[in-house]
């Protein structure tokens, strides 16, 4: 038998009899499982999730669920095909033994695998003081339970809501409060809402939008402490500028923490920014060597991106979860040279204050911005981000149909400022500094981050050749 024929036989055998375990039962885990079956994998498939719920969709949680239009338990994701999987829900993975190829579970069980897909995603960063975080009326917003709890609190008509952190989740929640005619204060440590994701120029527009809708927006201030009443319910917050805000509901929207603790000691390149992997989802070990049996997808994955100078990107985007999981699933049941990359042009959307904000590319990669279409005054415009003479991202406010145009330019590394789209041009098309915060300035963490090498995180053992 030739080597090629032997390898082909091995692949056939793995597709029929291999054992695949997916840790993480959310969008990436589900779509990864479906893709494995679609790719012809018929072996035993186990899906492990720490929440008791089958995979559900998160974007509605901060919008229609919070508003009370849709119950939180209506968000289970549609299934695209039968899975024939063993579901282990309500039990967290607590460890990974790569030597014996077992996933360790919180209930003591060990699940064997031949190939593993890590899709453990992120969790909400809690309010840092545990006693204050435990006060009744203090919420985070990431899970179905979070959304259900916060929705009930809003339905009880609080006298004022305090939102800490004006990233996308915080801004969307503030928008819902105003829709429900609930007074809301937003405290953001950065100079403006959305500043980490979109920079100061767009942040100022977002700030004006909040104020136009009656949000008491306070930027450049932190919340130093939360104070409860005798019954343990939050009543007020003390801000770093010496003022206080009386509020009976507090939402801490401080960004997310990647769920990597269970990988401690596994020898994988896992840390603060997620699990390092190649563009095909193959996890790196601590020395930067691609593994053959462990794959990563979704929010927890960070991979070099060809369009962004091969910098590592961690993308908390809906379609990154879907496409990353599909690419990883394909590669799990194929051999090189048939591997497939997840070459997603990152993109997100956010609905707030009646405006649809969409972006394509990686805005924080750029340092200049130019308004290319529409009118800022009307909250209907497109703007492009550039770096060293090339377009790297674009953002639209109620101008989503033009995003594809900019996406194509970004993929072609077209010049910046970009060629005018020939329609609806603003009077003044002059590039200006995009005004992103210096690295290290605390803001709500953007949902796509450049995660280039961080020396503090190095855990690899470096042994120079003697």
């Amino acid at each position: 038998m030739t080597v090629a024929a032997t390898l082909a036989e091995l692949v056939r055998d793995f597709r029929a009899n291999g054992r695949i375990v997916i840790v993480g039962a959310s969008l990436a885990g589900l779509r990864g499982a479906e893709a494995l079956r679609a790719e012809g994998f018929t072996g035993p498939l186990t899906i492990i999730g720490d929440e008791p719920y089958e995979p559900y969709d998160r974007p509605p949680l901060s919008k229609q669920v919070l508003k009370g239009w849709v119950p939180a338990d209506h968000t289970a994701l549609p299934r695209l095909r039968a899975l024939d999987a063993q579901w282990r829900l309500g039990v967290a993975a607590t460890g990974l033994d790569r030597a014996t190829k077992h996933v360790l579970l919180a209930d003591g069980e060990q699940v064997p695998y031949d190939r593993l897909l890590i899709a453990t995603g992120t969790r909400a960063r809690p309010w840092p003081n545990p006693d204050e975080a435990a006060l009744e009326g203090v919420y985070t917003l990431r899970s179905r339970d979070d959304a259900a709890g916060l929705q009930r609190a809003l339905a009880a008509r609080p006298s004022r809501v305090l939102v800490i952190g004006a990233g996308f989740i915080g801004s969307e929640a503030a928008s819902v409060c105003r829709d429900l005619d609930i007074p809301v204060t937003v405290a953001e440590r950065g100079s403006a809402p959305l500043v980490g994701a979109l920079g100061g120029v767009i942040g100022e527009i977002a700030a004006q939008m909040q104020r136009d809708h009656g949000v008491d927006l306070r930027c450049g201030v932190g919340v130093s402490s939360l104070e409860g009443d005798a019954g343990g319910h939050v009543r007020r917050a003390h801000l770093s500028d010496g003022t206080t805000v009386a509020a009976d509901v507090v939402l801490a929207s401080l960004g997310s923490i990647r769920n990597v603790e269970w990988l401690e000691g596994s020898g994988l390149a896992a840390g603060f920014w997620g699990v390092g992997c190649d563009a095909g989802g193959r996890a790196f070990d601590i020395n930067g060597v691609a593994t053959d049996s462990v794959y990563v997808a979704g929010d927890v994955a960070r991979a070099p991106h060809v369009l962004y100078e091969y910098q590592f990107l961690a993308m908390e985007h809906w379609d990154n979860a879907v496409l990353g999981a599909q690419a990883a699933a394909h590669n799990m049941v194929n051999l090189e040279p048939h591997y497939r990359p997840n070459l997603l042009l990152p993109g997100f959307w956010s609905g707030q204050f009646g405006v649809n904000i969409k972006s394509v590319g990686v805005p924080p990669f750029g340092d200049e911005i130019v308004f290319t279409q529409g009118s800022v005054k009307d909250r209907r415009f497109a703007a492009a981000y550039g770096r060293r003479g090339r377009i790297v991202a674009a953002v639209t406010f109620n101008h989503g149909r033009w995003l594809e145009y900019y996406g194509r330019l970004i993929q072609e590394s077209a010049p910046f400022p970009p060629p005018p789209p020939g329609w609806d041009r603003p009077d003044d098309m002059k590039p200006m500094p995009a005004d992103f915060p210096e690295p290290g300035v605390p803001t709500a963490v953007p949902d796509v981050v450049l995660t280039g090498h961080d020396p503090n995180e190095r855990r690899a053992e470096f042994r120079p050749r003697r």
Partner: protein
Amino acid sequence: MRIVVDLNRCQGYAQCVFLAPEVFQLNGEEALVYEPNPDDGRRLQVERAAAACPVQAIVVERLAAAERSVAS
């Protein structure tokens, strides 16, 4: 029945809002919100909406409940 809309792909053409207004709504000019778990009685409406979407952003579940069973 379960549905999900790829809101990255959605461009606010509002065909779904027109065909199934109880399920899809616009929040402002182009931000779509929807009921992800509409009554089965609305299936025809929802399927028409999915078919009419110019960018095919609406995914409608095809599986029967029995096939998506989850053992924990």
